[in-house]
């Protein structure tokens, strides 16, 4: 599904990713962990197509196509989704209206008929329960005045509505209390399936108790320095990142 080869990325003349290699297959859940400043969020945002980054080397293939050649909106319509670490507040745009526009943009792209207001409300009803999205959240402006938890639930709700093939969750656990974390994780878990790949970017192991990954990678200084199974996350939790950074253990041990 996603092949990242020797990806090098700059932002404002600072080299952030120095050579990331990552191979994610359909049906898998990968966790990207790493200390602050290691480039985790950059990786997520480059996959989504954020304009502030400049790719200086390497390639990203999505379903065999050059992802970096695609506009951010084309990526989204083709099934790439990023849950934002800091969802943007958009004054004056009704959340339900925005969600309908997003769903229909994708349907149009796929040659499916656009949903009318009634059909869309049916879809909303079906998907909103799990993430505890209430009517008030739908009628407010996008993310405006939402609590931290509401913003993150709204992100995963969008993921549920858009049914992406590749979802990248950028620190979706940050700022969540344990109940909100469980709700969000439950929402993500229902989305797991053989046709979908999920990349969970997180600083802490906590989220991985609820969204159990197939693979865990540790990013440090702009590249993946260690990969392993879910037990790697636990090891990191015990030993901290300094264990990786000091290189006390050989990579790939």
């Amino acid at each position: 599904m996603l092949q990242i080869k020797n990806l090098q990325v700059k932002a404002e003349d600072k080299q952030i990713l120095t050579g990331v290699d990552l191979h994610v297959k359909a049906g898998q859940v990968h966790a990207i962990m790493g200390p602050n400043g290691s480039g985790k969020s950059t990786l997520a945002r480059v996959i989504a197509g954020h304009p502030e980054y400049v790719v200086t080397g390497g390639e990203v293939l999505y379903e065999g196509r050059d992802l970096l050649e695609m506009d951010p909106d084309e990526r989204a319509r083709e099934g790439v989704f990023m849950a934002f670490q800091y969802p943007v507040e958009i004054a004056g745009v009704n959340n339900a209206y925005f969600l309908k526009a997003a769903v229909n943009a994708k349907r149009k792209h796929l040659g499916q008929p656009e949903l009318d207001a009634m059909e869309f409300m049916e879809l909303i009803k079906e998907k909103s329960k799990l993430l505890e999205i209430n009517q008030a959240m739908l009628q407010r402006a996008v993310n405006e005045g939402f609590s931290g938890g509401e913003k993150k639930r709204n992100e995963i709700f969008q993921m549920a509505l858009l049914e992406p093939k590749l979802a990248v969750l950028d620190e979706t656990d940050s700022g969540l209390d344990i109940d909100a974390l469980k709700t969000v994780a439950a929402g993500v878990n229902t989305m797991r399936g053989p046709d979908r790949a999920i990349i969970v970017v997180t600083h802490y192991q906590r989220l991985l108790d609820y969204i159990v990954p197939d693979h865990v990678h540790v990013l440090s200084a702009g590249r993946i320095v260690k990969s392993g199974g879910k037990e790697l996350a636990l090891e990191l939790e015990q030993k901290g990142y300094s264990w990786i950074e000091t290189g006390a253990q050989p990579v790939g041990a």
Partner: protein
Amino acid sequence: MTQVVERLQPWIATVEGRAQGAPRWLQDVRDKAAARFAALGFPTVRDEEWRFTNVAPIASTDFRPSAEAVVSAEQMAALPYGNLPLRIAMVNGRFSAGVSRLQNLPRGVRAGSLAAAFTEHADVVPRYYGQLADFHSRSFVALNTALAIDGAYLYIPDGTVLEHPIEILFVTAGDGSSAEMTQPRTLIVAGERSQARIVETYVTLREGTYFTNAVTEVFAGEHAVIDHYKVQQEGLEAFHIATMQVNAQRSANFSSHSFSLGGRLVRNDVNAALDGEGAEVTLNGMYLADGDRLIDNHTTIDHARAHCPSHEIYKGILGGRARAVFNGKIIVRQDAQKTDAKQTNRALLLSDSASINTKPQLEIFADDVKCTHGAAVGQLDEDAIFYLRARGLTYFEARDMLIHAFAGEIIDRVQIEPLRQALEAELYAQLANDLAEIDAA
């Protein structure tokens, strides 16, 4: 400048000649206004009130008073506005009974020609006409007052509610071969406890350069509730200068919604005097401009009495090399304790070459008051654009959604559904044009 004034003299004389039988008081007002215009001339950028708006192109053009014209029902029906059940139709400044719709008005309501009302409603009109709008110091008001031969008149008696909105439609017509000017004039007298929704629209059937110089006077009696909408969609080569003067009596509630969508050089003065305790005024506005167009909005809210709230939001969307001016004056007089005035002005610049000069101007002479103002000028929020694109919307869809949200704060307050829809359609049409321009570039 003297030349310009001399050039206008024959027409001023003609107006008086035509107005044979015009009542003495009216001739008097016209004479005084003509004398004031002769003394004032056109303003220049040396006048503080006109610093950023140079009207030299108006002063230097040999505008002739527009000729009488006939507009067919089909032409009226094709206009983007004006399809409300009640309509005072004005063609080149003159009342046109044939295309007006004034059936089934509530008892006592007068709607139609101001020229007729000068004599037919002589116990009311002279008390307000030329008394509210200041022709002594405002040259365009003086010019209008000197030259206006007719106008729209709406009188709503005490306690009367106009259930349906009424539109005052000013249409400019002509073959476009010569530069013509019109002096649209409106007088609205709303009695105590009366209620009405009034739409004042300026549209055109002609092309080329012309000049509209409008004056509107509104008197809102005690406890009257008046919603006023102005839609200005003149031709893109047109000059539009307009002054609205409002007097709100005790506990009256007056709201103005001004939409400036056309014109090459546009100046709107909206002045509201809160002239009785508990009166409330809302002045909202939205303007759109691209190309080399200029839109100047000057507002004055005069808190003359105590316990009056006022609210003001103006929003502009500017593309191309368009320029805008916003000047919001709030005067709080010594007796106007417990004033609560709030002013917001925001502009969205869609191009690097668009610009706005914005200035709040508070003159406060009372001590127990609350006055807030804020101005924000900016471009579209790039983070918001990316967020929307990351959900599959194209750049232009995202941009339109954000612009629409920006304008929605003003458009969504329009309480007349067909008008709200027409304004939305116009906003989208202009954005689409702008996109075509960008694509071509």
